[in-house]
């Protein structure tokens, strides 16, 4: 089948906020820009699902006319991100984050973003509203938008990126892209886990393909789970509605013995974790402990109730968060009835954000000339644990990555992508279509997704990581080569897409499990039950995975610091968590 060909200065891969902002940034610098959106425009990736909070320091926030805390400062935010990240952050990226945030918020206001409310160091909008504003702006500045198109691979010649191969999922036809620079903005790889909070498309192509092209990945073991995610009813599974509500209005969490299991922990830690976005790491950790020790419920969760919180307070928050008893478009009527009656809802710790990713410098360039990355798919900003907003991250990083990619594209002499290389990649991607009577991708995917949830969750052990790794390696060896779609034909052949995605999911799980095995300590969202201590003497380093001729090699490198020197010594994990909470500045709010 003949492939379409498209030429551009900058190719942006990813249809979430980082991708849109990068494409806008490249276009505003005068470069031509093409954006690949794997799913519906402005309705795929994790961005439209976000709550969504945009964080910046309260002083700048108040100067912009919002109810920010004027006693806040960029330095305080910097301090808080470093301590929330257990000192594993790239401090240069935090500086870029705090300095870039005010301009990004100003432009959102210029572009008519609707802001719902604000607090000490954040404004709250909706993921959908934000994506609509970015889509409109992208159209205004003339970004070429390709919908339902999936990246298959990059073309690298003489060590530099020259283009890419993509698949139009609807027609099944390939697209050849000649690009002087590429920005990866593909977000996380939620689809490696079941259940998950992400959209169906998030399978980590950007990370795997960047790695294959020669970029390093780092801190792949740091995976943030969101607590209090609905596990039932089935149509609401994966919704964060109860998470959002619980943080504002309070909650009671109980195990299958009826115990309020948070009571066993230090009250200060529980207090901070219940009222801020520390809940993601701490409550997910506590939830995983209950479930692993047999005190959970049938869907792998715990019970969420209103508890002693008055219904009037709950109802008022529901009115703000779920207008007309809808969260997004999810009908919350029955959930509301159960909350009013104080009946339990089963909720759990569900994969939400990936703290590690593609290694980039402070200009968002990888070590491969022409390859940039921005947003969740990158390494470093949040270190071992994210509390501040990923919405701010995607916008500050996307803007700089897009602008820098445009500048590189203007200065670089880039050859057209090699047709032989494109043909070879095309042939490889077609292999599942040429097989018949093999394995169906969906059951293979579900099996490894469920194993990832239990073995690479908030609590890990050497034994479980080894068995996950062995299983992934077996699947790679024995099952992936046999995947074959049952349907003939290329047009909307979902099993073909699933087979291609599964290769990426398996690769990422192997890298993450290997990194988690290597890190024999507990820090941030990575807790090793067999190494329950934060070890600042040996593990204040980023884990790296490098591509080699026959696979990958593990390595480490020191963290990049600018103004805060990390501590030495070893500390039991929960003491370390409390210590990090105590080092937070006096500024209130949820971050």
């Amino acid at each position, binding site marked *: 089948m003949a492939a379409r060909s498209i030429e551009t200065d900058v190719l942006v891969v990813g249809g979430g906020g980082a991708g849109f902002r990068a494409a806008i940034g490249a276009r505003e610098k005068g470069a031509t820009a093409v954006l690949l959106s794997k799913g519906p425009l402005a309705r795929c990736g994790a961005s439209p699902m976000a709550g969504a909070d945009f964080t910046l320091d309260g002083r700048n926030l108040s100067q912009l006319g919002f109810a920010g805390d004027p006693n806040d400062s960029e330095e305080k935010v910097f301090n808080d991100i470093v301590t929330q990240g257990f000192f594993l952050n790239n401090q240069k990226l935090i500086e870029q984050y705090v300095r870039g945030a005010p301009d990004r918020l100003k432009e959102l206001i210029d572009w008519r973003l609707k802001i719902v409310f604000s607090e000490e160091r954040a404004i709250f909008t909706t993921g959908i509203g934000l994506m609509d504003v970015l889509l409109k702006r992208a159209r205004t500045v003339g970004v070429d*938008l390709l919908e339902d198109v999936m990246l298959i691979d990059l073309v690298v010649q003489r060590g530099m990126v020259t283009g890419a191969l993509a698949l139009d999922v609807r027609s099944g036809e390939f697209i050849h892209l000649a690009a002087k620079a590429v920005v990866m903005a593909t977000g996380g790889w939620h689809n490696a886990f079941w259940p998950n909070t992400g959209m169906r498309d998030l399978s980590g192509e950007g990370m795997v393909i960047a790695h294959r092209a020669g970029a390093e990945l780092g801190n792949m073991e740091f995976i943030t789970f969101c607590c209090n995610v609905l596990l039932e009813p089935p149509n609401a599974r994966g*919704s964060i509605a109860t998470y959002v509500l619980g943080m504002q209005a309070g909650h009671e969490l109980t195990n299958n013995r009826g115990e309020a299991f948070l009571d066993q922990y230090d009250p200060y830690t529980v207090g901070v974790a219940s009222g801020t976005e520390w809940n993601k790491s701490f409550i997910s950790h506590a939830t995983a402990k209950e479930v692993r020790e047999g005190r959970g419920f049938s869907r792998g969760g715990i019970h969420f109730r209103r508890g002693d919180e008055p219904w009037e307070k709950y109802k008022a928050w529901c009115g703000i968060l779920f207008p007309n008893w809808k969260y997004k478009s999810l009908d919350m009527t029955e959930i509301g009835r159960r909350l009013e009656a104080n009946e339990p809802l089963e909720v759990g710790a569900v994969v939400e954000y990936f703290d590690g990713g593609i290694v980039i410098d402070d200009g968002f360039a990888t070590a491969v000339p022409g390859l940039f990355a921005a947003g969740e798919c990158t390494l470093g900003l949040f270190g071992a644990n994210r509390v501040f907003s990923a919405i701010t991250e995607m916008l500050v990083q996307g803007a700089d990555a897009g602008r820098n990619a445009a500048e590189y594209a203007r200065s670089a002499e880039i050859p057209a992508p090699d047709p032989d290389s494109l043909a070879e990649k095309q042939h490889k991607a077609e292999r599942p279509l040429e097989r018949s009577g093999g394995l169906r991708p969906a059951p293979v995917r579900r099996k490894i997704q469920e194993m990832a949830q239990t073995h690479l969750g908030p609590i890990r052990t050497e034994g479980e990581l080894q068995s996950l790794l062995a299983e992934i390696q077996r699947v790679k060896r024995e099952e992936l080569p046999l995947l074959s779609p*049952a349907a003939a034909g290329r047009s*909307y052949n*979902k099993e073909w897409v699933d087979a291609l995605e599964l290769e990426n999911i398996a690769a990422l799980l192997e890298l993450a499990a290997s990194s988690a095995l290597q890190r024999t300590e507990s820090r941030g969202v990575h807790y090793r039950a067999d190494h329950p201590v934060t070890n600042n003497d040996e593990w204040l380093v980023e884990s790296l995975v490098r591509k080699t001729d026959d696979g990958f090699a593990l390595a480490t490198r020191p963290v990049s610091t600018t103004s805060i020197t990390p501590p030495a010594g070893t500390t039991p994990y929960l003491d370390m968590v409390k210590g990090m909470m105590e080092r937070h500045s006096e500024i209130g709010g949820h971050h």
Partner: protein
Amino acid sequence: MAEKTITARVFRMDPAVDEESRYQEYRVPFEEGMSAMDVLDYIYQNLDGTLAYYDHAGCSLGICARCNCKVNGKATLFCQYLVSGDLTIDPISPSKVLKDLVCERKRENP
């Protein structure tokens, strides 16, 4: 007692090979609170991988609206249609079917 099952009658057509559409029936275990999307996921993952419905992206939570369709003759979203018993599932525009339940869309760019 055997678990409760329902029958899903699903519109099938691959315009590349089929002259006419047909309905295919599947038996699916019923769970209280399941959506039409849950029914299609069950069929695709366990019974018939040739079924095409918009699944490679999308949110399952009613925000992307890409799974618009007809269930029992009424326009809805797969992910927001609550199933209570047997159901018939059709594409939103049967005359513009790309494959099964996925319809053609106009491209905004070349």
